[in-house]
């Protein structure tokens, strides 16, 4: 009886707590989502320059033409590469912050990882052109040291440049959640592990890693989502005509093909939702954020 009531009260609390965010997401966020999906099935109306309710799958058929499908794959590939590299760099960096540094150095590092973020991402991405270009700093150093005869061309206007630019821009998204996850680790557990003779790697893989996994997953997801949505690095650092989903949406908007733009966006949302569901099933995402028992 009492247990029952506790459970009910708990549900009510949960509902009340969820209310503000649900208001925002369902009240504001869901409407564009639903409209987007609906409009993607309507037809462009040349008279009103907008969409009209003549239902059609034409926009989805158009997704299969002109290599549009490859843009989805390319974007997913670039975003996955960026997220993977960012996470691989961020996990050790966050470990240095969360485990291997005293409070002062940890503070300093977190600040250092956040400061570049305050300057415009656009300007930062542009600066890479001057660092990586044919006459840029890196090529200048390489030719100056006699390591190469002619400037290395693929440093700029290539997928390499795009991924580098995105990693540089998005690393903090991966680092911050992992640093926060270190609060889950009790120093005494680490000490115990070492008292038992476990080395660094043993301690890291058996104790640290499982506990910071929520941070790693969240960091990966953050970077992936941000990278999927970006067009800046691709337009500034990519090769001739380099594309991504956002670039393609801009192209389509330029010719006011609104239904197609909405169809592209709908596919992106469906794909990402599917990805999260799969991740949830396999990695037990929703259990990651549970506390550590008592």
């Amino acid at each position, binding site marked *: 009886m009492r247990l029952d009531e506790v459970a009910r009260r708990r549900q009510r609390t949960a509902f009340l707590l969820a209310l503000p965010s649900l208001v925002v997401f369902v009240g504001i966020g869901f409407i564009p989502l639903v409209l987007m999906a609906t409009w993607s099935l309507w037809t462009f109306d040349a*008279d*009103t*320059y*907008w969409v009209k309710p003549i239902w059609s799958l034409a926009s989805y058929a158009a997704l299969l*033409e*002109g*290599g*549009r499908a*490859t*843009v989805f794959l390319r974007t997913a590939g670039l975003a996955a590469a960026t997220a993977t590299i960012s996470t691989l760099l961020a996990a050790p960096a966050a470990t240095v912050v969360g485990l291997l540094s005293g*409070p002062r150095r*940890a*503070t300093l590092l*977190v*600040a250092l990882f*956040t*400061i570049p973020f*305050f300057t415009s991402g656009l300007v930062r991405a*542009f600066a890479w*052109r*001057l660092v990586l*270009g*044919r*006459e*840029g700093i890196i090529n200048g150093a390489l030719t100056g040291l006699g390591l190469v005869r002619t400037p290395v*061309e693929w440093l*700029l*206007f290539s997928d390499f440049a795009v991924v580098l630019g995105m990693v540089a821009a998005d690393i903090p998204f991966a680092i911050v959640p992992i*640093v*926060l996850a270190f*609060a889950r680790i009790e*120093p005494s557990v680490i000490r115990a592990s070492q008292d038992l003779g476990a080395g660094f790697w043993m301690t890291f893989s058996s104790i640290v890693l499982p506990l910071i996994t929520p941070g790693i997953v969240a960091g990966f997801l953050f970077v992936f989502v941000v990278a999927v949505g970006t067009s800046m690095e691709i*337009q*500034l650092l*990519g*090769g*001739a*005509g*380099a*594309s991504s989903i956002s*670039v*393609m949406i*801009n*192209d*389509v*908007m*330029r*010719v*006011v*093909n*609104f239904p197609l733009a909405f169809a592209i966006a709908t596919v992106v949302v469906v794909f990402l939702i599917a990805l999260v569901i799969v991740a949830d099933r396999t990695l037990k995402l929703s259990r990651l954020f549970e506390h550590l028992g008592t």
Partner: protein
Amino acid sequence: MTRDDFSRRIRSQLTRRRLFQHAALGVSVLAAGTLGLPRAARAADEINFWATGTLDIGDDGWKTFERESGVEVNFSDNGNDPGPVVAKLAAGNANDIYDVGGLQGGSEKEVAKRGLIAPWDLSQIPNYASLWQSAKDIPYLSYEGKVYGIPSVINADSIIALRDKAGSVDSYGVIFDRKLKGKTAMEDAWINSATFAAIYLKNSENAKIAEPGNLTAEELGLVMEFLIKHKRDGQFRTFWSGWEQGLQLIASQEVWAMTGWEPIVYAARARGVDCYYAVPKEGYEAWGNNLVLLKGAVDRGLSRTAHRFANALLSGFYGCKLGALRGYFVPTDNNVAYATAHSDDFDPAKVAELGEHVKAKFAGRVYWQNTRPDNFQLYEQWWQRLRNA
């Protein structure tokens, strides 16, 4: 260890230092905020001018403009990309905020058809008469006999080339020249690049193309296949968009020749780069940036002010200022008259020279760029194919 002990320990050991870490960031946020200055309040005779950034003459320029015309101008950059601009007009909130637009020419007719912009009453714009005929004749400025677009800036574009690397260039052929493989660039928009390629193919390769700014499906296929082939061959270093990108490509010698905007040449030269604007034998790509009267301004009772603004824009000062600032040209002879009367502020000879220079370009072969060719959806499909080739 008791529960209390535990929680106290966590607090003292973990939280304090983390709080400490993140407080650093919180203060940086506030520090960044203190750089801001208070905004000016809105006055009565005020126009919100929403245009391509290149039409901006800066705060001091607009101050003088206000002194001369009595119209206060709030300039907002519209991003120049005709797609989002039209989307914001058609579906978004542009008409709630802005009064006069400055659009890259082509879509006037279509937004006029939908009633998003209102026709200009030319009797309220005496300076309209002073506009060059070639500018008034731009094909897409009127709809159903009424004028919707007033040319504010026109120019004719061609190729920027590095003198010591590309040699002397007189043809778009240089962009597609094998010897410059990986060292050329075009703009990241079919509006420009398809038109340039069409001009080249029409006049140097005898391709059957009637109007490079408005290609038929068949002509478009020919032009785009040509571009796709060269893209696959690695001919282009990159495609560019926007002033800073274009300038950087030339100034850093990333490319030796590219299609682009004439003022980039002036800016690159000022930086000591030996480059020039080619006179292509195939002809120039002409473009106009046109003033449109937003329907919202009429609804807000600002129609008369907007007309005064448009008239003032053509009265000379703006043309002189824009020419001095960015090398862009307002197609009216009022510029020279103004500079002559204000020779302390502007050099009449220079103003006249810029006018003659643009006039000379228009005396030869020019093809108008068009952001809305009849087959514009097809253009986009082909551009996708080019991107993904």
